[in-house]
């Protein structure tokens, strides 16, 4: 089976700086893949190249058999890639329900005339969209009471969930989560991890996540890719990656690498 997303020799240069250099990797359909690396490793740049915010300087990004280099973000979303943001980017002054409805925008078809004259098909579409939005809010664990709450007034954890609901509303095949548990307490993190599993299992999705929290990444990902200074340095099962000396070195510096070989790096103890 062909992989859902395939990156072939992706490179991104900003002027003289090469943020991502010749990275190739694949995501199998139905898998949960983690993309990790120290700060400045090029994770988010890579993410932005998938979603169309940046165009790769070199290489090909192939989604579902289609080359998507330089496709506009809205078109990429339409093809089936939904995303969340590292620092939450909800539509702050719209209600939770409206946020999810906006997510469904690219799956709706009513045109201007349909809107102005509120045709039966527009009403039906709107009603269905609304029901789906309510269902999605419930699915991610936001109660009915939150539906009319302004997004900016929701608690932090709920905002993260709402972002997931909004991304799911675009009917993605591939869901990109940019540090979904950033700033969450352990309880919220566990709940979100559980949600990611559920999303994958019940909705037949493929998930790519960037994460700093090693515990989350190692616990949830089936495969992990490690970037450091724009270069892919390791790839494989979480357990393999964890003990890869290059990874340990990238995270903790050369001094620790030797120690890491012996007893495993301290950061990964909890994993």
């Amino acid at each position, binding site marked *: 089976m062909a992989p859902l997303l395939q990156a072939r020799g992706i490179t991104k240069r900003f002027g003289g700086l090469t943020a991502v250099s010749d990275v190739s990797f694949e995501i199998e359909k139905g898998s949960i893949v983690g993309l990790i690396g120290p700060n400045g490793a090029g994770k988010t740049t890579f993410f932005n190249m998938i979603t169309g915010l940046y165009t790769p300087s070199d290489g090909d990004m192939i989604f579902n058999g289609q080359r998507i280099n330089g496709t506009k973000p809205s078109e990429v979303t339409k093809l089936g890639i939904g995303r969340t943001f590292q620092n939450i980017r909800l539509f702050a002054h719209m209600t939770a329900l409206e946020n999810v409805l906006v997510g469904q*925008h690219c799956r709706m078809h009513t045109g201007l005339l349909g809107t102005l004259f509120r045709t039966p098909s527009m009403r039906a579409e709107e009603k269905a969209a609304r029901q789906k939005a309510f269902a999605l809010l419930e699915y991610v664990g936001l109660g*009915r009471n939150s539906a009319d709450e302004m997004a900016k007034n929701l608690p932090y954890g709920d905002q993260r969930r709402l972002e997931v609901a909004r991304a799911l509303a675009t009917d993605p095949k591939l869901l990109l989560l940019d540090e979904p548990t950033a700033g969450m307490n352990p309880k919220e993190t566990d709940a979100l991890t559980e949600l990611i599993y559920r999303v994958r299992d019940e909705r037949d999705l493929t998930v790519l996540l960037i994460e700093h929290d090693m515990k989350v990444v190692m616990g949830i990902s089936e495969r992990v890719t490690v970037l450091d200074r724009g270069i892919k340095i390791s790839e494989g099962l979480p357990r393999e990656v964890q003990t890869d000396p290059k990874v340990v070195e990238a995270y903790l510096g050369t001094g620790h690498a030797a120690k890491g070989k012996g007893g495993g790096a301290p950061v990964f103890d909890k994993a």
Partner: protein
Amino acid sequence: MPNTKRYLTTGGVGFAVGTFFLWNYPNLGLGAALLGGLVIAALCLLYSAPLPDMIKAGLIAGMFGAVMTIVYGTHKPGVAIIAGMLSGLGAGLLAFQRSPQANPKKAAILGAEAGAIAGAWTGLALFVMAFVIAPAAGISAGDFAEHLSETVILADTLGLGSDILILLFAFGFSTLTGALLGAAACAARSLPLRPNIPLLAVIALPVLLIPLIDRAGNLLLLDALIPIYIFILLALGLNIVVGYAGLLDLGYAAFFAIGAYTTAMLSSPHLGINLSFWLVIWVAAAVAAIAGLTLGAPTLPLRGDYLAIVTLGFGEIVPILFRSLGGGPPGGTLTLRFFGMPIGIEQVDLTGGNKGINPISPPHLPLIGDFEPSNKIPWYYLLIVIMGLAIFFINRLRDSRQGRAWMAMREDELAADAMGINVVRTKLLAFSMGAMFSGFGGAFYGAFIGAIFPSSFDFSVSIILLCMVILGGLGNMTGVIVGGLLIQGADKMFIPKGAELFRRIAETKARAEDTSTVGVSALQDLTQQRLLLFGIVLVVMMLVRPEGLLPNERRKAELHPDDDTINSNSVAAEAEADPSLAA
């Protein structure tokens, strides 16, 4: 004590105003002191927290009624009645908004109390007017009451002889109608019907009745009201661009001009094309919408300040273009050089240059015939229809896929893009829709005024429109309408009439003292200061309430329209039943 500062500020302002009056117009001293005291007392009451909402609402709306009564009183005392009605209605709605009552009866009582307070305020202002201000302006209390009785038809029928009785009657009348309308407004809103319809009825009724009251009382309000409504229509269109889509447009008057000039060119003897207004208004709207696209396309990558500068330029260019399209003597040629080759173009006077286009044909209807400039009533109703349609369709646009896309783009353009919204199309749609409504406004304006000049569409029009949108509350149609009524009402009604009142008072005083009437005080000519006043109001607003008078509230009610109620059980059940949704 957090309110102390406010009491002190209000007191200080009141003291300054009172001193000014006493110093300049000693014969006004008593009335000024009385009225100033009341206003200050009301403001203090408003600021102190524990006051019931209905009293606050009554006071707020009542002050509007009182100001209207005093400003218009010397001309048309009957305005007091309308002011009492309107402020009662406003008070009822305000009271309801602040403390909604589910029970229609309780709501009616709440509205009646608020309405009565507002109406009584207006009535009180009537007394101040009759015994203090009118005499100061050279009208005796008796004359004033007589004027009033001409308006209040019943006063004659009831045989109310004395001035006091007529005044008392008017007082009671404005209090009663205020209370009734307030009660009706409140009760209607709390009915378990679809919320929009009774509310709409309550608001529409006085709006529709104004021409009849106006004619019965010979108040000549329509002359001022029609331009006010036109500006509100324009502000509603601007609100799409600025309020919903978040694109700061400083040249919106350009589209107004385009609509008006399209109408003028196609529906006047000027170019010999004399099409029917009913066709031309659509053409004007379409041309304006296309102009919106034309402006939108090159400005797509621009945001915030940069967009504002470009739109500002556009707003300046369009009137200049219309001015220069009329240039040259008849039969003259304009010579252009194209790669050195001179090309002569016969100059056609398209727009009449500075002289504008005059006359423009009025609309024609089978039963009414041509709309006459002297009879404003058909114009008024035509405009109400246009505005009603505009409000109706803008509402639909906002509560739709397109409207949500505008708002998402306003909130976060990048996130909107990432959620699958085509930002280019969404921006262009906002520009063209906004422009389209001002095209309608421009077409009506051209036909109504009957003559247009490039100077009617200068920068200040764009700015005043923007002020209306910001004052009322960005992105909220009710707010924009209220903001428009306030700013345009001040511009076209209160300030001119207030200035005239000042002038009359000053003249009377000068006559009494046997001095020259020339060069009294600069304040008499308030009309010269109107832009200063708007500036002050805007600065104060930005400091005190930057979100506008009626900010975009949580849209709970709108998201749960009763016709397709999604109650929690049914959706949960459906979600369970439908595996594609739940699982």
